[in-house]
């Protein structure tokens, strides 16, 4: 069986042209997929998680019952993850958080959370990736390395595709600003090596120079700024080089304001390079359900948003939760080690298709169908465009959404 136009459930590019071959209940091949996407499809059954309690295998029903018991008896549960599952499951997770009076956070918190904080303050000049493909004649990658992290971004959206008004790479100028000469930098017309931790300073100087102030801005940035001012349609794609480095949301804030300033001269947009395939959806779903995109607490009976207080790393580092439900993510792999011990000490429940580092220390493990391979749903691309994920295989397990609705029923019973 061959499935066409399958949406890839790996990164925020959400490539929707994957061809998947299924033989005897297994994915045997893919076409158009990048190396990571192919690995996800072809290896999706490897290292599969089994239902367990305290390391002992149990039935799925028992694992879900135990998870409901833990959550019901918790005074201050943390629900975390969401970005590698679909929007319906995210909606159920938020509902569960509301019922429990829990803290709920999603993986943007350790990814583009600072981007959200920046754009809450500065606003964001946005456009779709289709507009970039068809119109952009200047593409600036700042603090990101799509050649390794968003492997088909160049080919589908920004550098190589045949667009309506830009036919090839020759008709586009590509600039990369990064602290090291990455594989992405090698395809760029211009590469600027920025000193680590100076993004805010450099972008602020660029803004001042743009406004005609005499500031000590390096020549290469002045040249880049001139290209930005004089292009017909420019775009900045930025990554965790801005959000994870000193300054964090202030770096992003400065970049957003630079783009706003550039619109005095030409059409310019900016888009974060979102990592997990539905992390943009996690932010959107949380925002339309609770009013806030991440780091939300329901202990007062209504949603309160406060990064630093209700963000997962802080909650765990301060030991402020007494149980955790981890959905479609792996905080032990991705959080600073200081937070791991508390996750191991409290009853942690993991819902995931695969064994991961968090499932290794979890009290309860609940295997689920892989969204986008074994379960349908909606996911949001990095530019905010929603796409429908396909189901190409049956799973022996329930979907995230089904497990979460069972948990809601059991917790409320």
């Amino acid at each position, binding site marked *: 069986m061959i499935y066409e136009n399958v949406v890839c459930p790996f990164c925020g590019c959400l490539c929707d042209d994957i061809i998947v071959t299924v033989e005897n209940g297994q994915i045997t091949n893919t076409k158009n997929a990048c190396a990571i996407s192919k690995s996800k499809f072809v*290896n999706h059954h490897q290292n599969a998680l089994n239902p367990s309690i305290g390391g002992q295998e149990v039935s799925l029903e028992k694992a879900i019952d135990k998870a409901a018991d833990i959550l019901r008896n918790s005074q201050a549960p943390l629900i975390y993850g969401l970005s590698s599952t679909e929007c319906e499951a995210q909606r159920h997770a938020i509902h569960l958080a509301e019922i429990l009076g829990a803290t709920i956070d999603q993986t943007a918190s350790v990814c583009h959370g600072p981007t959200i904080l920046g754009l809450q303050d500065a606003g964001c000049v946005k456009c779709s990736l289709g507009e970039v493909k068809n119109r952009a004649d200047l593409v600036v990658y700042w603090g990101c390395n799509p050649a390794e992290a968003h492997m088909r971004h160049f080919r589908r959206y920004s550098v190589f595709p045949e667009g309506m008004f830009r036919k090839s790479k020759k008709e586009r100028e590509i600039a990369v600003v990064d602290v090291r000469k990455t594989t992405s930098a090698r395809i760029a017309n211009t590469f600027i090596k920025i000193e680590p931790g100076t993004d805010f300073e450099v972008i602020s100087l660029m803004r001042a120079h743009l406004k005609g102030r005499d500031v000590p801005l390096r020549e290469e940035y002045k040249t880049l700024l001139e290209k930005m001012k004089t292009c017909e349609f420019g775009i900045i794609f930025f990554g965790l080089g801005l959000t994870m480095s000193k300054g964090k949301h202030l770096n992003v804030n400065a970049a957003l304001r630079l783009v706003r300033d550039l619109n005095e001269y030409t059409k310019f947009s900016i888009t974060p390079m979102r*990592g997990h395939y539905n992390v943009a959806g996690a932010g959107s779903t949380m925002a339309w359900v609770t009013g806030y995109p991440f780091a939300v607490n329901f202990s007062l009976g209504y949603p309160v948003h406060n990064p630093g207080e209700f963000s997962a790393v*802080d909650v765990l580092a301060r030991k402020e939760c007494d149980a955790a439900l981890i959905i479609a993510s792996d905080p032990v792999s991705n959080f*600073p080690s200081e937070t791991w011990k508390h996750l191991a000490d409290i009853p942690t429940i993991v819902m995931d298709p695969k064994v991961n*580092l968090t499932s290794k220390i979890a009290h309860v493990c609940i295997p689920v169908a892989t969204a986008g391979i074994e379960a349908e749903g909606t996911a949001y691309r990095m530019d905010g465009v929603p796409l429908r994920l396909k189901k190409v295989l049956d799973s022996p397990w329930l979907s995230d959404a089904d497990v979460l609705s069972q948990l809601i029923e059991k917790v409320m019973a």
Partner: protein
Amino acid sequence: MKIVLLSGRTTKQGVAAEIGKTSDDYLQNVALIQLNPQVMEKLGLKEGDTVEVQTKYGSCVVKCQKSDIDETMGFMPYGPWANLLIGSDTQSTGMPDSKGVEAEIQKTDKKVESVDEIMSKIVEGRK
């Protein structure tokens, strides 16, 4: 020797994570640090030798790999080894300082700890 530690995605890390985070592929492609060849020479390191990386938050042992990165920097793929080296203070943003941490590196005879070895330490003596 002092360096500034950077972390990020690599294709090999992404591919290996999809095979499984307890797989040998993951260990081989994530428990590593990329260094400038001159830095490696100064420390008497050959590609594949083990390096102890220490920050004020913790330490880990990883294999080294040549890269055209600056002499003042080291790059590690995202994963548990890199996260042994960063702190949990987020300055009220939710985001730890995952890039740009100062680190000390030295050649070592210690071996790289596997995911299971790291995890068993966390679970040890849990409440």
